[in-house]
């Protein structure tokens, strides 16, 4: 979705891009196959510990991925209005509105997926997630499992938090065994942890190529590949595809090529979720000015590296939206410095109170610490109505002018 509308281009089937696309597509295909076989389907939060259901061999899908896909294909506004017709305020997260609307509409052209038999919720990304899934569970009258990972006000994860999450983790396994009739195997769990680590490492390795100047990739690519990091982290195919992606980037660096098809004049960090309904516009505005996105916290969001069970839990406690301002700031500062970022473009996302609620202060601190200019814009991850092209254009232009001035271009 990062490219221009050109004659339909078919990627080399042996390329990482094709493989990742295939995994994403098969993810949905497999859901329907499972549903037809009579298997139970779960709807799952993006940062729910996937090791649990991978070990149990359950089939789940991701409403957040679906909502993003629907929004990117132009259905966000329509489904938001369906939810609003039910009484949901238009101030509620647009992913939630789209997902709740989909659970009622059930068949749309943008992206279908099977209806759920149970729900797996984890609030390490936000508490809004709890309310969204509560309402789904009530409406659909199906069981819901919540792994509560509270926002951590401290820099380090405490042993008390690990114990609390571990208790829930074990309870969730027991409940899921009851709901689905599947059995837990410690051996399988070990294996899944290995694969997940391998996938995460490969994902982090691939995203790390943004640090090269120029970068071998258009940063918007990551927002697409992320779907696979979410839905297939525990599979060997995903691990292999990301390893291949990293290899391709390595080649590109050697050959001086890039998926960013313009001269890379400026390097920025894009903060926040993409504006899916306006993805082309937001990306093109940057590309036309030679601005490449070389840093995003997304990379970290789905890279879970750990050695053991406690480490696994700690990794899920340390996802970007569950950590305090200082920890979140330092993670970003490190990326900005490491990837030689020259400006920050911050999406103040109407849908995400948690991601936007202390972003002003945090981005000020990052900009100051790294001595880079900062520009914010108002937008929304999935509701097309909360975005203004004119405002975005002006803000990006201003950022560009400062970056140019800093380089003494003018």
């Amino acid at each position, binding site marked *: 979705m990062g490219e221009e509308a050109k004659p339909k281009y078919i990627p080399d089937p042996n390329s990482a891009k094709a493989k990742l696309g295939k995994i994403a597509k098969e993810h949905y295909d497999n859901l329907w196959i499972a549903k037809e076989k009579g298997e139970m389907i779960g709807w799952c939060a993006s940062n729910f510990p996937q090791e649990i259901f991978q070990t149990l061999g359950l089939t789940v899908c991701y409403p957040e991925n679906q909502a993003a896909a629907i929004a990117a294909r132009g259905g966000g506004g329509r489904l938001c209005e369906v939810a609003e017709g039910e009484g949901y305020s238009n101030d*509620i997260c647009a992913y939630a509105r789209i997902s709740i609307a989909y659970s009622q509409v059930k068949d749309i052209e943008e992206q279908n997926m099977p209806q759920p038999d149970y729900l797996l919720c984890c609030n390490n990304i936000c*508490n809004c997630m709890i*309310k969204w899934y509560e309402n789904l569970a009530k409406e659909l009258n199906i069981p819901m499992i919540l792994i509560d990972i*509270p926002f951590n006000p401290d820099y380090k994860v405490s042993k008390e938090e690990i114990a*609390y999450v571990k208790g829930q983790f074990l309870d969730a396994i027991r409940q899921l065994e009851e709901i689905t009739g599947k059995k837990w195997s410690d051996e399988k769990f070990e294996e899944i942890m290995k694969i997940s680590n391998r996938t995460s490492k490969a994902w982090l390795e691939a995203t790390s190529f943004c640090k090269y100047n120029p970068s071998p990739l258009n940063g918007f690519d990551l927002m697409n590949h992320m779907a696979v990091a979410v839905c297939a982290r525990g599979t060997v195919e995903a691990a292999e595809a990301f390893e291949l992606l990293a290899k391709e980037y390595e080649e590109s660096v050697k050959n001086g090529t890039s998926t960013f098809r313009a001269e890379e004049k400026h390097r920025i960090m894009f903060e926040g979720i993409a504006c899916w309904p306006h993805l082309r516009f937001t990306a093109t505005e940057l590309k036309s000015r030679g601005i490449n996105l070389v840093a995003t916290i997304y990379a970290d969001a789905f890279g879970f590296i750990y050695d053991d069970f406690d480490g696994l839990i700690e990794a899920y406690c340390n996802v970007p939206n569950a950590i305090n301002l200082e920890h979140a700031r330092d993670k970003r500062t490190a990326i900005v410095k490491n990837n030689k970022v020259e400006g920050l473009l911050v999406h103040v996302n109407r849908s995400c109170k948690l991601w936007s609620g202390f972003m002003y202060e945090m981005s000020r601190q990052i900009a100051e610490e790294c001595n880079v200019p900062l520009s914010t814009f108002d937008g929304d991850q999935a509701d097309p109505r909360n975005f203004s092209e004119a405002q975005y254009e002006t803000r990006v232009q201003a950022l560009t002018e400062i970056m140019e001035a800093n380089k003494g271009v003018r």
Partner: protein
Amino acid sequence: MAALQDILQEFHRIAASPQEQMKHYLAQNKKIVVCSPVYTPEEVIHSMGLLPFGTWGTDMEIKEAKAYFPAFICSVMQSILELGIKGAFDGASAIVIPSLCDSLKCLGQNWKYAVPGIEFVPMTYPQNRNTTYGKEFTKAGYQRVIADLERITGETFEDEKLHKSIEIYNAHNQAMREFSEYAKNYSVITAADRNAVFKSAFFLEKSEHTALINQLLEALKETELADVKKIRIVTSGILADAKELLAILNDNNIQVVADDIAQESRQYRVDCPIAATALDRLAEKFATMNNCSVLYDVNKGRASYLTELVQENKADGIIYALTKFCDPEEFDYVVVKKICEEKEIPLLLIEVDRQMVNYEQVRTAVQTFSEMLG
């Protein structure tokens, strides 16, 4: 009657002058700990000899806080931060902010930089709270608060003292429930009076507040029940304390017969039971709390709880005062709306926030609602 009005006036005075109350306690060399919504463990603070001083923000124009919060964060958070920046809490030793909703998480993080003079103490609660591991985590949260407050204020914590404070708080809960039960039938208690009684609780040491409530109850018992036909309403939401809103309820002959307001009765529904230690008692209390938009409940029990409130109190309908940008309440509204449609309970949705100047739309809506029920 004069006595009753005098006592009510005292509640109004306290509710309207939190800063005077703070000064009053500071002058007595009390150390003050500001308590942000929602469910801050006041008992713990009280037991350490500190004065828990509640805040739910105030109706005001937001200026300074805009440098920290985008416009779509609720005005409760915005105005608490604004008050902090403007020095309304100066003299307090610390502020305790629980993180039960996304905006509260952000309030805590912003506070550290916006109001560096008053230290932020986080209170982290579990959502899977009624489990062994959940209760352990709740206790760990309290212990964190204790450790921070010991460091900041030099006061110490003793479990025995917490038992005593818990008794004071349990007695206060009891008094508040009794007041609500009594007040519903007395047309002399207006919506504004009722709110002042609840709101003042945050600005007084709790045994003092209980004493005042008991005086009020005595005076009420001596008051004759007037035979006035009122429209009986249950209110629900985060808060409904705007002067204009309360006046509108009164103008339209509305008697609040029960509430499910976070700032009001949600605070007082559950007492601390008996348990091994005082801290366990407190954790047990949190474990059994429910029917609240920021406490996880897969059964959405709050909706049926509301309909029970309507039945028990013979109410004519529900006013759902939705705090603008409060997503937990926005999600719950839809479930409440459905159950009200099923049970044919009239439900009025009004949006409120702390920066509202024009109440005309609310006035029209409330008037229409009362015409519909009357």
